């Protein structure tokens, strides 16, 4: 009963949330889930979500489930091309199984 699908995860600066959601929906995904995050990567520590002030140093972790490999790849490619030159962020894909295929 379970169907193969892809999960795309994007971790990036919180101020980009709105723009990335637009990009995700435009790419053809049916939805997303976002959680506040902190972290560290090539561009330094970003920890305000847990301890500090001001959205500008917070991260957001966005995950998207889609049954279409193309949609998944499109999100990854576009996010990297459009934002990751100038903004901190990472993106990756995972395999998942969903029950209600038509929901995604």
């Amino acid at each position: 009963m379970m169907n193969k699908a892809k999960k795309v995860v994007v971790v990036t600066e919180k101020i980009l949330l709105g723009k990335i959601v637009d990009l995700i929906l435009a790419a053809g995904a049916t939805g997303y889930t976002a959680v506040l995050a902190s972290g560290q990567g090539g561009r330094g520590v970003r920890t305000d979500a847990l301890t500090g002030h001001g959205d500008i140093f917070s991260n957001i972790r966005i995950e998207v489930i889609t049954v279409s490999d193309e949609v998944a790849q499109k999100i990854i490619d576009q996010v990297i091309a459009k934002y990751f030159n100038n903004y901190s962020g990472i993106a990756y894909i995972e395999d998942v199984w969903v029950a209600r295929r038509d929901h995604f």
Partner: protein
Amino acid sequence: MALNMDVLLGFFHTFLTQFQTPTLAFLLGGMLAAALGSKLDIPDAIYRFCVFMLLMRIGIQGGMEIREGDIGAMLLPALFSAVIGMTIVVLGWLTLARLRGVRMDDALATAGLFGAVSASTMAAGMFMLEDEGIFFEAWVPALYPFMDIPALVLAIVLANLYLSKKNGGSGQRVAIWPIVKESLQGPALSAMLLGLAIGLFTRPEVVFEGFYDLLFRGLLTVLMVTMGIEAWQRLSELRKVAHWYIAYAFVMPIVHGLIGFGLGYIAHLLAGFSPGGVILLAIIAASSSDISGPPTLRAGIPTANPSSYIGSSTGVGTPVAIAICIPLFLILGQAVFDL
């Protein structure tokens, strides 16, 4: 406007007295606590509430007094505010941006932040004037957006022209209205404008005195502790960027304040702008944005490194504006206007 020995002595005395005012002491205390590794932490919700209260209080008072006052007198100072904001950006472009190891977009973003305004520095300046019993027009704090927005817009426009040219583009036009709109929609300016409207159109006297004004000074001290902690944290970001930012952030608030004082003085001569207003305008000019400027710049100049401009403004600019510029322009005003 002679800066003789007496003035200097007076400056040091005022300066030392200011170190004993709670506003500054709380800022330095926050910095010291962070420097000593303290886990002292003002929750983000409290910090944002303090900012809201501060700007509502400033807005409501402005609105209530404008209701009775002469709004025409605001024209020249408002014009001058815009000139100051833009001059600061141009100055940064002529100085900081030319220095070795400083990227043009980082420099313009930094200059934009120093041209913009810090509501808490302005509030600290208002207190100091009230404590000294020096009058200023109630609409002076409402000059804030007139300086803030032109500075941010100019910095973003110049940076985008530069980047577009660098990338071989023909320097296409940058849409200005979205930047203005984003500034006005930010939490700080929104709160001040909401306060202004409420002060202008309703009768909020009871709640103003019994709540917004009552808690104002106390919440400012809480804000100062937070800003001190934040200043220390951001200071460490500056280690990663060119040292010129520290020099710029240390010296320029004084220069900007002097420009503000000078233009304010002209408004004093031409349009009867009050001495207190001149001093406050200088402080507003000396201040650099901590709250609302950074997100606008992060979106408007995405290639600029936020460590450079936020480090400069929050880590150095604001402490210098509060600790040095506020007493400096007070004593300068007292000397110039014989207060």
